[in-house]
């Protein structure tokens, strides 16, 4: 059996949703009561309650960033969302513990059981609580912690508290504040010094309740010399009304550690996906974000790395596909804060139909640093004349001892390419897919095998839908 067959994800399967009895429901809207309710239900320590309430204040005090970002943000009605839903269950250890209706949802999503069994550890988030989390024995023997964030807060406060909210402070932006107030779900991972996790840790999650914002919070810490790859992917069911997703992901790579964080997202076209992702790289550490955004109404996401220690390396490889009526506002941030730090950004965007792609980059190298290097490449591909792409690179480089390279290109899949491909027998959709997959091929090569195949399939489906 080919690899493709086992990881076939049929996007149409994302269209189902099930009636689910929510044991806990914080109601509609956002207030102190909502936050207190969440923290009570979760049985959190007081410091978490204080953290959440402070974040709520910051959220209310900050304006929407519409002075630089799209006005579409104003269409988010924060009073209409449910901020917390839970079955009130503990994350499950074994597959047998997973409730049947949740299993049914995963079946519909086409996530095969044998694949999960194959994974080093699976954290599958169903709504706001982890429905299934398991770890291979050898991982826990090595001291690796891979749990939901709620469990992490309870069972490992000494590690959690040290790093939580440190890479992305509450007030970083309005949406990080929102997440900090109402977060639930997400993963907490700790890799002890020198431990190199060979298989990628993986999480599948999806949004399953209408008008329910998902605010997962992920914190990954790789101790000195440790290495880990984390993969997240998600498909969401389609709903009539808008859905809000606002995650915060913090990575900490201590001296000589390596973290690779891979995302392939395929949101339904009513989702606002406003995510803050940032890593902190200490001396000789390496953080690599591989970020692929497909779908959603609006995605705003700029994974970043703070290069804090000498010799630290940061990388963002990003692919965005904006279909009709979608806006992918993505990019990267590289904050150089030590000598001899290097960063690399490669961003490719594809705009189809009325789709719009925006690249925003920020590279900051202060004057007093030496030996810093940045390379930025952003390429946009337009599928038809209505598509729109904008590039806003902000590169601040001071001092003579640092170097930056920046290249940007905009190209079109031209009619002659499509004619050529079709003359060889491919139909229009297949021809478009092949050309688009070719455009991102050099980036996709860096993805793990199963993700690159999945990505190719997602693009095939998008392209088939884009031609008449």
């Amino acid at each position, binding site marked *: 059996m080919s690899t493709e067959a086992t990881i076939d994800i049929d996007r149409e399967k994302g269209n189902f949703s099930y009636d689910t009895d929510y044991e806990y429901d914080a109601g509609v809207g956002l207030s102190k009561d909502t936050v207190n309710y969440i923290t009570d239900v979760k049985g959190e320590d007081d410091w978490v309650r204080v953290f959440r309430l402070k974040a709520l204040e910051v959220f209310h005090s900050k304006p929407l960033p519409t002075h630089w970002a799209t006005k579409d943000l104003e269409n988010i009605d924060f009073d209409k969302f449910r901020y917390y839903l839970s079955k009130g269950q503990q994350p499950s250890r074994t597959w047998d513990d997973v409730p049947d209706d949740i299993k049914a949802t995963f079946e519909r999503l086409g996530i095969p059981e044998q694949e999960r069994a194959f994974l080093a550890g699976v954290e599958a988030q169903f709504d706001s609580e982890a429905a299934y989390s398991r770890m291979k024995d050898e991982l826990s023997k090595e001291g690796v912690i891979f749990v939901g964030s709620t469990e992490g807060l309870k069972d490992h406060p000494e590690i959690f508290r040290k790093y939580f909210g440190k890479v992305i402070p509450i007030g970083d932006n309005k949406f990080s504040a929102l997440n900090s107030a109402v977060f639930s779900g997400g993963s907490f991972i700790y890799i002890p010094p020198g431990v190199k996790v060979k298989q990628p840790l993986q999480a599948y999650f999806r949004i399953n309740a209408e008008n329910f914002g998902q605010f997962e919070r992920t914190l990954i810490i790789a101790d000195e010399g440790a290495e880990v790859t984390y993969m997240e992917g998600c498909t969401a069911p389609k709903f009539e009304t808008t859905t809000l997703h606002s995650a915060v992901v913090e990575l900490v790579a201590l001296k000589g550690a390596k973290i690779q964080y891979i995302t392939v997202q395929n949101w339904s076209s009513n989702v606002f996906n406003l995510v803050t992702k940032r890593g902190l790289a200490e001396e000789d550490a390496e953080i690599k974000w591989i970020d692929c955004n497909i779908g959603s109404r609006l995605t705003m996401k700029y994974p970043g790395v703070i290069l804090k220690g000498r010799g630290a390396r940061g990388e963002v490889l990003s692919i965005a596909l904006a279909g009709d009526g979608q806006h992918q506002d993505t990019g990267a941030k590289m904050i150089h804060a030590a000598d001899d730090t290097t960063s690399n950004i490669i961003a490719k965007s594809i705009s189809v139909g009325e789709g719009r792609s925006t690249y925003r980059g920020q590279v900051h190298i202060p004057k007093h640093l030496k030996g810093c290097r940045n390379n930025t490449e952003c390429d946009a591909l337009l599928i038809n004349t209505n598509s729109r792409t904008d590039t806003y690179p902000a590169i601040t480089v001071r001092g003579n001892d640092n170097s930056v390279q920046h290249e940007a290109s905009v190209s079109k899949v031209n009619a002659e390419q499509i004619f050529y491909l079709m*003359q*060889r*027998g491919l139909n229009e959709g*297949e021809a478009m897919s*092949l050309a688009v997959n070719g455009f991102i091929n050099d980036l996709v090569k860096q993805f793990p095998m199963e993700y690159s195949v999945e990505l190719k399939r997602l693009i095939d489906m998008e392209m088939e839908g884009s031609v008449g």
Partner: protein
Amino acid sequence: MNDLNIESLNVSIDEKQILKNFSLTIPKGEVHTIMGPNGTGKSTLAKALAGHDDYTIDSGSATMDGEDILAMEVDEVSRAGLFLAFQYPIEIPGVSIANFIRAALSSRLPKGEDIDAVAYYKELYSEMERLGIDRKFTSRSVNEGFSGGEKKRCEILQMAMIKPKYCILDETDSGLDIDALKIVADGVNHMRSEDRGILVITHYQRLLNYIVPDYVHIMMEGRIVKSGDKSLALEVEERGYDWIKEEIGATV
């Protein structure tokens, strides 16, 4: 029925008529050549038959083994069995030759079926060897950064792998040095078969030293004005086209 049959074809681009009552029949098993000065509509013929959007079919018919190809989409014409070797092959960045040809072959299979990868690569490598194409080329992006000769050889490679019923080679010889020309000609000769019709469009007679056609047609002003065998091509090389112009001028 067993032919590529073009009758009284009128084709225009941007309201300018290019093909004027063009007629030609290529039965399976034969190799035909069209020669003619620049701008007489040779490439238009190739692209119009392939179904390119820019060309408007004003009237006439074109059938392949009895099937109306003018009613088909570009990909349908291709899968029905018509292959066009491009005069200027198009670059497809990021798409390897191996994947490209594989996609082309897969498009001919019933939905859900896949090609046998081992057999595919075996055949691909053997065809590449015949055409003197280095194996490293399989992973290179289609036509990107290829020399003129490499592009043309890659066209012949695709043709050999797809095994079409009818082939149109649009100035496949242009830009080739003599060694490359021989290799390409060998590739085409290897494709000659009772089950296949081949149309070679060229400016120059020299290609016909290596691909000996059954018929040579001279095209001017959008139609065939004179037909003969290989000796006609030699005559054109020696005397140019003016005498034919005068001849048809005399008959009009």
